[in-house]
């Protein structure tokens, strides 16, 4: 399991939107500041500088806010600082541009606060609409403060005032919609971030737990198995007392069972470790023919008892060293040779050959065994898969050998190939990169 790190595309698009929004916002605020100061220029120079400073502060504040607070969980203090800054800005701007159209404009701080407090999308929109209606009514009443009847009220409309009020209302509605959209995005984002955060923590915890589990399980499984295998071996050797032929035969069989149990346990534990990449590969150049020769000589006894010949073919002397993790490649070769021996009847042979081709070193293990039915080939490398016993004799295995081979090779970034003909035998081969000469 890997932890989630890359944000989803929708979030990246959203962040890009935020960037555009931020830029536009800062430009607008500076623009207003400059306009206001130009207006003030005719009255008093000192005030213009003050307004520049004010606009600059609000712009920087907005930038910092968007950079550091925006996507986090909003808090009451952030909401109030935000509202305070905007309130100061609105009042000074109004003061600079010749007075307020309406003090009700200050009510727009309410939707800002509710957005920052993440109170959902409906509340800011409702507040905005409510304030818009209030301001509209106030504007109408300002145009004609004392309407005596509805006719006089309508007749007294100044077209400029209507235009101005309509523009105000339109912009107010846009502000409301804008706030609503931010609010929705904010709440979604917060929800997603919280969920991703929780999931991440959970994954890390499970991962650590699995690591520890593998380590402890390995040790705790191995300890009784060590005692079992060791004890049976000591018993069989007659070190606890001489055994009768019958007893020897019986303990020998028990010992075989313990060996198989131990093999399954080791294979499973190795897989857990490999799958977790805990066994970091130690890639270095090594002498593949020398390793093969050692494995072949060590496995002669095992093959000899089945009357299967093990052969290592001559390799060209110019063969470069192979790049890989020698200990893991040893496991790969041992598993492949052991499989070959297992599925080859008496009198047959298993041949290991190494050659190089185009910067790669190819190792093949060819047997003269029973072969693999074509329909079974794609199942071979599956965990716990065992080819049906076609030899009609006990071919014991864990069904993990080829899976481990595939796992190790895929950690090397390489693959394992297989060619087989029923009754003729099979050839398994894997490639490794050749080390540069020198």
């Amino acid at each position: 399991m890997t932890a989630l790190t890359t944000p989803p595309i929708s979030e990246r698009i959203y962040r890009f939107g935020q960037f555009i929004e931020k830029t536009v916002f800062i430009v607008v605020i500076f623009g207003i500041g400059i306009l206001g100061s130009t207006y003030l220029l005719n009255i008093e120079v000192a005030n213009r500088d003050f307004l520049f400073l004010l606009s600059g502060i609000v712009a920087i504040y907005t930038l910092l806010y968007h950079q550091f607070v925006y996507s986090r969980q909003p808090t009451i203090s952030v909401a109030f600082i935000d509202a305070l800054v905007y309130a100061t800005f609105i009042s000074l701007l109004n003061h600079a541009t010749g007075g307020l159209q309406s003090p009700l404009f200050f009510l727009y701080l309410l939707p800002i606060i509710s957005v920052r407090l993440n109170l959902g999308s409906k509340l800011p929109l409702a507040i905005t609409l409510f304030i818009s209606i209030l301001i509209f009514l106030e504007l109408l009443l300002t145009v004609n403060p004392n309407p005596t009847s509805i006719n006089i009220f309508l007749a007294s409309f100044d077209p400029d005032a209507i235009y101005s009020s309509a523009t105000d209302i339109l912009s107010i509605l846009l502000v409301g919609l804008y706030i609503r959209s931010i609010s929705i995005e904010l709440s979604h984002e917060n929800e997603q971030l919280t969920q991703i955060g929780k999931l991440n923590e959970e994954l890390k915890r499970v991962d650590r737990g699995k690591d520890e589990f593998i380590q402890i399980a390995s040790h705790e499984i191995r300890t009784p198995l060590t005692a079992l295998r060791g004890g049976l071996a000591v018993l069989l050797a007659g070190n606890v007392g001489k055994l009768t032929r019958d007893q020897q035969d019986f303990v020998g069989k028990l010992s075989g069972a313990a060996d198989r149990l131990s093999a399954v346990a080791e294979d499973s534990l190795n897989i857990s470790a490999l799958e977790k990449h805990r066994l970091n590969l130690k890639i270095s150049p090594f002498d593949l023919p020398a390793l093969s020769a050692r494995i072949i000589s060590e496995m002669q006894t095992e093959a000899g008892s089945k009357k299967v010949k093990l052969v290592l073919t001559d390799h060209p002397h110019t063969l470069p060293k192979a790049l890989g993790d020698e200990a893991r490649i040893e496991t790969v070769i041992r598993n492949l040779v052991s499989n070959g021996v297992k599925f080859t009847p008496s009198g047959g042979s298993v041949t290991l050959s190494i050659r190089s081709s185009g910067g790669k070193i190819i190792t093949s293990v060819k047997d003269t065994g029973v072969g693999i039915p074509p329909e079974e080939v794609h199942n071979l490398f599956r965990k716990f898969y065992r080819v049906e016993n076609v030899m009609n004799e006990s071919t014991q295995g864990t069904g993990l050998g080829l899976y481990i081979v595939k796992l190790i090779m895929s950690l090397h970034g390489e693959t394992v190939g297989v060619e087989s003909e029923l009754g003729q035998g099979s050839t398994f081969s894997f490639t490794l990169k050749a080390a540069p000469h020198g």
Partner: protein
Amino acid sequence: MAKRILVIEDDELIAQIYDRQLRAEGYEAKVLHDGKSAVATLTSENFDLVLLDIMMPGMNGLDVLRELKKNFKSAKVPVVMLSNLSEDSTIKEALHLGAVGYLKKIDYLPAQAISEVKKFLS
């Protein structure tokens, strides 16, 4: 004179199995089940080789190794780790602390393990 081998192993059954195998092969074996008594024994008695487990309650094998190397008398005895821990980092640490060998217990039958450590018995 028979070579003296000290087996430090908390699992009594495994310790007993090694004890029997060692005796059958003509060694003089002594078995201890915890790190603390092992350190005490090694500073007062002479041994030709120590087989040392790692996962033990209280003082673990690596702690024991560290202590042994501090003492002039015990520092000279070759120590072979015999543990079922197989993490590279553990093996590296043990060798760094001065163990002459590291055998993964499950991979060796007692007779095989003993034939492996024979080379350290000069």
